[in-house]
């Protein structure tokens, strides 16, 4: 299992994020939890892209070709997309939280208007 510590970290991050999304009542905390979940997904991409003794996939002043080992570039490009989209969605969710607070006077999702108690 020691080979898989990064994957275990990925699963733990997703677990923490998901449990907070499901059980927390504060909208701000839910947004933070979604960010933690997203960090887990990003870490997963980085983990599968890793190569031993690999440098960053940039040829500027890189070692000579015989000794050259590079990590995979495509997951990094995907993470670049994911980070920007994550930032955008986080900002949008926070703005919705602002509107929710102004319309309901609370951020607790149990006390929103029109929400019935399901417990």
């Amino acid at each position, binding site marked *: 299992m020691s*080979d898989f510590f990064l994957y275990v970290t990925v699963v733990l991050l997703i677990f923490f994020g998901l449990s907070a999304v499901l059980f927390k009542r504060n909208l701000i905390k839910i947004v933070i939890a979604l960010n933690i979940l997203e960090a887990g997904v990003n870490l997963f991409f980085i983990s599968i892209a890793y190569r031993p003794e690999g440098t960053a*996939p940039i040829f500027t002043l890189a070692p000579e070709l015989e000794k050259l*080992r590079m990590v*995979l570039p495509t997951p990094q*490009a995907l993470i670049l997309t994911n980070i920007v*989209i994550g930032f955008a969605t986080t900002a949008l969710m926070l703005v919705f939280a602002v509107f929710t607070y102004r*319309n309901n006077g609370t951020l607790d999702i149990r006390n929103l208007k029109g929400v019935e108690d399901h417990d």
Partner: protein
Amino acid sequence: MKLASFLSLVLITGFLFVSINKLHPVGSPMGNPDALKDRGTAVTDIKNVSTMDDYYLRNSQTETGSNNVVASIVFDYRGFDTLGEATVLFLVVTSISMLLSLLYKREDVDDYEFRKPNEFPGDVSRIISYGSYLLYPLIITFGVYLVIHGHLSPGGGFQGGAVMASGTALLLVSALITRHVHRTRRIFSFFESLGLTIFISMGFAGIGTTFLYNFLAQGSASLFGRAIPFGPNPGYLNSGGMLPVLSFAIGVEVFFGLSIILVSLFHVARHRKDPE
């Protein structure tokens, strides 16, 4: 309801834990090593079966002229994906700006005011005020460096734009941008739209082959067309074809888009009216 949440949490986490055993170990080869006997040495790993990544690493320099393989993927091989990403960012900025403008009255915040460093708003100390004046040009310079050298070194349009937007955040917390929110947003939204327009028109400029075709690579050396052979090199600024132009466009869009978000959120927090 709580039971269903708990069950789904346990199921998803358990599924993820079980599927760990099916993954290859971190950093070790994946797939069948025997299938690669005749492929010679790949750049990523000798026994690595990731043909797509190996193709990118071997051919990005000769095809796109960019030393940074990640930038060549983002702006060339997956340029259409990046266009969609920029569109998502543009839409988010538009909706945030539209939603937050409902929250404050126009006459409250529309008078123009820019604080000089010797005028203190009262809640900002002299150290913060002068320190911001000192730091802001450095932050902007670093962001511009990241954008311009996006095809040579770590960085690119998104990162450089985000760094420059952190300069806007610095100006906001040090109260150097105070009350001219509508004018600021008008200027910022013009430049944000300009960035996306440059991106799309560069895509249409290469429409003779495909949309977003890198027609500047292997062209004239004065137009970023310097041919780069495969292998390490010290980095040439006039290489990369269309990548520096697209990186600049994305940098402009990200900088002004994030600045609009920051300014809008800051003014809602500052001019908050009590909920009725």
